């Protein structure tokens, strides 16, 4: 924080350029890649129940991601975005919050949503755009949202949620709610103007917001280092905006949890915005529309498999005696069966009724939209075979 706004600065008499590399920020790590606690580090105070809930969520999200990538390849859903390799970043951070804290994600934070209690059926309903989807089948797969779970609906445009998080947190502060907002985004999105606007305003207004950058190394094909940014990643920008900043190993669920827990204290108790940069790796393509073999090597991907956040945490849990390999395996199989059953169920549920097409544009549909719907329905009745998803139920009501 600048100590003075009236230009009462220390004077130097020789020109001094501060080098762009003068501030390099280290990475906080607790769990080594082999699943042991690093020398000098301390495991966070976390009971067995919470540790197992975190692990169970990580397992579930990994299965969901793997199965849905396969489902997309089979043509059962149109599109999917996985969070493979980044489970610790979203789940470890969500675990350090209270359910009343708001989550504003980008589109790779399904882990945080699952931790909050979004059910496998709810995930599937969104992915299949059926009539039970909270978003009423309007957005592409993975654009989840749930007001009950304080998880703001995902939008595809990047970084738009960052200044929104600052505004939301301002309201939380004014309401003396004792809650904060966590805002996730990638290192690519941090290039957008909205990133800078959002951080600067948070610093000016001193709001309870945690900016969580998942630096996963790639924005689609564009590598972070040298092509997305020329400096030391995202973290130094937080310092420049005058806010508390930490860089953590994003594949270390303990480091993520502990950093977020402390950030929440700063945010909620002291109205200090915080920037956390979690260093990770996007193990899958950007989405199912992307093939990473066009821009990175198998060797690089394999090197990161050795840092797998789920495997790392499982090792620690086993060493701790809180789970056995057999139990973990059994849980995995049970979850897989559950995911497959929910998938089969969701694809049989119809799309929303055609009347929904004009809903929610405004609080109530204005006349011109009612007229357009009536014309559309008359057209569908005339050519029912051309609109098979909605024609059969067109006069059945919602």
């Amino acid at each position, binding site marked *: 924080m600048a100590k003075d706004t009236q230009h009462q600065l220390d004077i130097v008499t020789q020109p001094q350029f501060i080098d762009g590399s003068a501030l390099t920020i280290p990475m906080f790590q607790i769990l080594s890649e082999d699943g042991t606690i690093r020398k000098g580090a301390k495991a966070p105070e976390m009971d067995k129940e919470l540790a197992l809930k975190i692990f169970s969520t990580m397992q579930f999200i990994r299965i969901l991601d793997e199965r849905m990538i396969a489902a997309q390849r089979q043509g059962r859903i149109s599109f999917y975005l996985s969070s493979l390799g980044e489970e610790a970043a979203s789940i470890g951070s969500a675990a350090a919050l209270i359910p009343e804290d708001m989550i504003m994600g980008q589109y790779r934070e399904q882990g945080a949503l699952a931790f909050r209690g979004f059910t496998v059926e709810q995930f599937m309903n969104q992915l299949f755009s059926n009539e039970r989807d909270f978003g009423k089948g309007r957005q*592409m797969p993975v654009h989840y949202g749930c007001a009950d779970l304080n998880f703001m609906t995902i939008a595809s445009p990047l970084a738009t949620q960052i200044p929104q998080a600052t505004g939301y947190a301002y309201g939380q502060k004014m309401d003396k709610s004792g809650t904060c907002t966590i805002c996730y985004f990638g290192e690519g*999105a941090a290039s957008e103007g909205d990133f800078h606007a959002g951080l600067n305003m948070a610093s000016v207004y001193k709001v309870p917001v945690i900016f969580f950058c998942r630096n996963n190394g790639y924005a689609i094909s564009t590598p972070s280092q040298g092509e997305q940014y020329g400096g030391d990643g995202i973290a130094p920008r937080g310092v420049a905006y005058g806010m508390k900043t930490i860089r953590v190993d994003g594949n270390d669920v303990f480091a993520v949890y502990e950093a977020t827990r402390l950030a929440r204290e700063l945010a909620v108790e002291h109205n200090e915005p915080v920037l956390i940069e979690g260093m990770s790796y996007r193990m899958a393509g950007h989405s199912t529309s992307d093939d990473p073999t066009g821009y990175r090597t198998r060797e690089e991907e394999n090197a990161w498999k050795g840092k797998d956040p789920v495997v790392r945490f499982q090792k620690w849990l086993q060493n701790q005696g809180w789970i056995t390999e057999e139990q973990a395996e059994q849980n995995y199989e049970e979850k897989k069966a559950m995911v497959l059953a929910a998938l089969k169920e969701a694809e049989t549920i119809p799309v929303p009724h055609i009347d929904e097409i004009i809903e929610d544009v405004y609080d109530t549909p204005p006349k011109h939209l009612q007229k357009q719907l009536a014309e559309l329905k008359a057209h569908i009745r005339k050519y029912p075979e051309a609109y098979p998803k909605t024609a059969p139920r067109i006069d059945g009501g919602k």
Partner: protein
Amino acid sequence: MAKMNLLQAVNSALDIAMAKSDKVYSFGEDTGSFGGVFRATSGLTEKYGRHRNFNTPLVEQGIIGFANGLASQGSYAVAEIQFGDYIFPAFDQIVNEAAKFRYRSGNEFNVGGLTIRTPYGGGISGGHYHSQSPEAYFAHTPGMKIVMPRNPYMAKGLLLSAIFDPNPVLFMEPKRLYRAAVGEVPEGEYMLELGKADIVQEGTDVTVLAWGAQVEIAEKAAEMAAQDGISCEVIDLVTILPWDVDTVAESVRKTGRLVVTQEAPLTNGFASEVAATIQEECFLYLESPIARVCGLDTPYPLSHEKEYFVDHLKVYEAIKASMTY
């Protein structure tokens, strides 16, 4: 001549432009050696180097601001915005900067070398953030040219014109047709005139006007109408701004009827501008009200895309209604 799809035609135009002038630069998100998410810039880095075809950081306002600066310096800046839906952070750089650069400086400076390429349009299960057709927002801005090609041949010749046109051009590529539209395209250089509509099919009963991917829909509807003995004159507007009033008005004076179809929502779409101008130009020739067949005034949906989509059946019905008014 070679068989090319629309992407290959765009790539060929970029290749020729970059070979023609070493002041042509191509850039955008993922457009470097990877060749862009649709692969429109494939091979250009290998051929012209990473200083001529390159990746940008993920910031649309930065991409167009950078392009404006580069163009004002005298270069040809060909900037890709990955999806038309993501062009809006650059809105200020387009409408307040690119479009007014020449005017505000009394022609001391200009960004005539700017071309913005962006894929637009629906029909690809893209929901509301990968399906929009935002041409009308920009058509409200004096100073920009806006071009929307319908097929590979048009795309290549128009893009070459756009790059070397002394005005900033927004070049909107119909992504639904990127691989679906295949046609004969000359391998060498050729340019097609901007601001000139193209009569795709001559007819006598009703004029059907469209642009970009919607031309294909209009042609299909005209085919259906032909079965009923209705002769449609199908016109591709090609350039949205400045648009070819004369060609459209001449056709409507002949047919007495006009159906305009666009993918974008009805209200304040470019079809409305066409309807207003043509009723002025052709009032005494009109035998039925000018019909606009457009998207609903809602965001572009996902699960109801088929219903929302301005398909040939909707255009066909409008043609029939125009004939029987």
